[in-house]
């Protein structure tokens, strides 16, 4: 591998080898000679689906050291045949964008800025408020005395990039809680 530094001098390689004009093999640097794509160095490859539109293009997600390093189309897919649109091709940036907010933020009533908050505290506060809002606007019956059994104090609006399993759990829990005002992108 490691040739003596002097012998690796491209001028000498030009003189010795098949590339006298120094426009090919003679001038390649050691880095170039040992180049390999980051997909080849990845720890693993997960099969995924593009999160943007509903064509359902398959993606190959390469990752290394717990970080996504590359996302590209999966040529095996009969739907997309390995192709991605610009949004799909930008998926890696969706994951690793410097603008991504990865910690909980809290804004108190009348506050003028965000504050930090522990995740666990935040989830507990939300659960308390959920119960309170449910009681505050609970409707047992309508004006004709017909059962309604519902909580009008809670509403939700979901995107359409939420997994079927997630929608299922959300629908199951919110419906059981009587929170009927659930909507999603499908109606927007």
């Amino acid at each position, binding site marked *: 591998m490691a040739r003596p530094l002097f012998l690796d001098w491209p001028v000498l390689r030009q003189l010795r080898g098949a590339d006298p004009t120094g426009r090919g093999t003679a001038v390649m640097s050691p880095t170039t000679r040992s180049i390999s794509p980051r997909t080849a160095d990845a720890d693993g490859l997960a099969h995924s*689906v593009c*999160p*943007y*539109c*509903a064509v*359902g*293009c*398959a993606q190959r997600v390469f*990752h290394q050291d717990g970080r996504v390093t590359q996302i590209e189309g999966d040529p*095996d*897919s009969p*739907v997309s045949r390995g*192709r991605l649109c*610009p*949004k799909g091709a930008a998926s890696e940036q969706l*994951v690793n*964008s410097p*603008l991504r907010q990865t*910690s909980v933020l*809290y*804004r108190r*009533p*009348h506050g003028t800025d965000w504050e930090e908050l522990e*995740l666990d505290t935040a989830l507990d506060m*939300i659960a308390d*408020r959920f*119960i*309170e*809002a449910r009681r505050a*606007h609970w409707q047992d019956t*309508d004006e*004709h005395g*017909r059962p309604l*059994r519902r909580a*009008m*104090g*809670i*509403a*939700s*609006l*979901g*995107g*359409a*990039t*939420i*997994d*079927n*399993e*997630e929608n*299922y*759990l959300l*629908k*199951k*829990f919110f*419906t*059981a809680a009587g929170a*009927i*005002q659930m*909507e999603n992108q499908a109606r*927007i």
Partner: protein
Amino acid sequence: MANADCIVIEGSNMAEAHPVGFQWVMEAKKRGARVIHVDPRFTRTSANADKHIPLRSGTDVVLLGGVIRYVLENELWFDEYLKLFTNASTLVSEEYGDPEDLEGLFSGYDEETATYDNSTWAYAGDPERLAQGLPERDETLRDPRTVFQILKRHYARYTPEMVRDTCGISEADFEYLARSITENSGRDRTTCFAYALGWTQHVGGAQMIRTAGVLQLLLGNVGRPGSGIMALRGHATIQGSTDIPTLYHILPGYLPMPKAGEDDFGEYVRQIGKKEQKGFWANADVYAVNLLKAWWGDAATAENDFAFDYLPRLTGAHGTYQTVMRMLEDGVDGYFLFGQNPAVGSANGRMQRLAMSHLKWMVVRDFYMIESATWWKDGPEIETGELRAEDIATEMFYLPAANHTEKAGSFTQTQRMVQWRDKAVEPPGDAQSDLQFAFDLGNRVREKLKNSTDPRDRPILDLTWDYPVDEHGEPDAESVLAEINGRHLTGEKAGQPLSGFAEMKADGSTIGGCWIYSGVYADGVNQARRRTPGQQQDETAAEWGWAWPANRRILYNRASADGEGKPWSERKKLVWWDEEMGRWTGDDVPDFPVTKRPDDPGDPSKGGAGALSGTDAFIMQADGRGWLFAPSGLVDGPLPTHYEAPESTVPNPLYAVQNNPTRVTFQDRNNMQSPGAHSAKGETYPYVFTTYRITEHHTAGGMSRFLPYLSELQPEMYVEVSPQLAGEVGLEPYGWATVISARSAIEAKVLVTERMTPLTIGDRTVHQIGMPFHFGRGSAAIVEGDGANDLIGMMLDANTQIQNSKNNDCAIIPGRRPRGPKLLTLVDEYRRRAGLIPEDEAQVDGALGAPGPGPGHELSPHTMRGPEEATAVPTGEPSMKEMRNR
């Protein structure tokens, strides 16, 4: 789609919104198919079509109605198919009255509630026979009460001249379109329609889709290779989120939410499907029991109707816009946003944000600091002085979400195919999946309520809520999928997954969270995770993912064979009857009882699948036929008929009734509407604007405007205008313009382009303005701009409760918009000119006057008008209600 001979893309900008899907169009084009794009704008789709036909936004029913008339006048329908598979020969009730006879209204309209009683639209016949899906018919199609004759009369006035004067399409272009479609339909050929939000986001959008459905049924273009009406959906699993909905009006598998007064379980399921009717909704009880049993487990018993009374009841529409109104009335305390950005993405952004300021608390789960999370500090209403952070009591929780690579789960794509995603990495920081959030919230609420004796808490405490979790507390998504699939509770197969919904029982011995998805976990194998490479499969690629129902890829494919079960032609064969084997066979899973002979007359006494005859290809319908005329399911009429868009300044050329009489409106100062053709002052807002998406961005921008590589490709909000309009108004190319609607005003850069065409409608010229809706104002995104949705009012289609984004009216002036409170002054100035607010109304300083109505405002605040959503929309398109052979 690649098998089509003619592709009409209308109401969709497929090349831009679905570039990867468009490869199949390009493939068909290379094979010789003709591609026609009908759209107000010349887009990247038009650039790759054989022809672009510009039309006036919102007149699709006239155009396609014109083609229907062309087919009927020139006797170009596919006669055998029509008689065999559609309700053309069915007789309609004598009480039915058509708008042609009733001056623009169907029979059964109630002025006061703005709704229809659809009982007069029913089929004619003996009630008992009707219940079995056997109405009266006249196979000669001559009876004036046949659907066919009604259709002929209904569309008689949709002439090429009418198309020219309404849509702005020349007779030559119309002829080209009509000929292209009809010449490429029949035994040997098929035409395919593709649409997207360009239809759905209209008042009357459902009827636009229906018009194409009627046309396609007439021409025999449903259930066959390269046929149909393809809905192009814009989100990864928007199909999945209606199948397993987070929508107020349905439960998983399109079972309707019960309404107030529906307290009897038996009655509830009969409303969905009667035991004696044809097709597979006859088993609605089975699906409902399996869902209830999946949710409430041991607490759901035959004795208590499987806890049917645990379900909350509806009293009308509770859609997102109704909820916004409720928020403004302080009727909602808490609001969850799961990866949604209504401050930018929903109609009337101003009202969305003002409504949020009335909340007690709000939870935003997203990847980035979207505008719906930061509206209280940097939203447009802060700039105008209408809101001040110090005055807003709303408590905000921002919770970071895991993205698609950081969790396992399934998406359902636009052709109903469920595809599983594997998890690649752990989510960073506090980020969590929505699955974990939902499970955790449930656990916490259940824990806090565990000692409650309040009966209202029983449904929460009795839930089956025990999913295995990993070391980070993330529930196992496959275990949820297994519950959705369902399993046997008792018997020798106890504990085993169901192989399909055919195994479901109504006695509580099986569970299944979403009957149409049953089979996705058959044999304990995650069928959605199958990834046999496409290269190793045939065109149907049945071993990639899993399509509901029962892994079927093309719906109603029985219609691809004739009355004897033979393919209509060699070119267009898909599924056929194999006499030797005594079963249906072919290149796809037959969407029909697999051993039912084509000449089987059906046994009406059996109900359900058994009652289907061998030619009842449309197994979702109670009469087994494709519906040219929809006796039920739609709230604004059994046949598509043209009404002008709510703000249109063009008088309806057909009827005195200008607008769709059932449209849903909300009256509020912030939701005013141009008088349109109702008053000369409608010309205050003389131009039509239509919103759309572009390739480089994604909906409200939450997943694109925060990404540098996408932001640089389309960095600014713009409007597209024709050179003629630019000249008329004085707009500089690539300079600024201010667009003013009755709701708000925004600024944008101007793209002056011949891609926008002024249309001649009668003696007037109609200018249309295009604008993308991806931009919003905040401070966190890489690129931002004024939001087009601020211009749009909350005005909904009654069938779908979807807003009208594609056709609103505006004024446009050169230069940037005023800053601060003066923005509101500008908007009010135009409202005054349009007569929406009195001339002498004191000028309201925005900071003081909002939210809510200003002084002297005549309209009562926050009233809503219009019917509830239709339970299901029979579009003729492959869609919702679906059954399989058992």
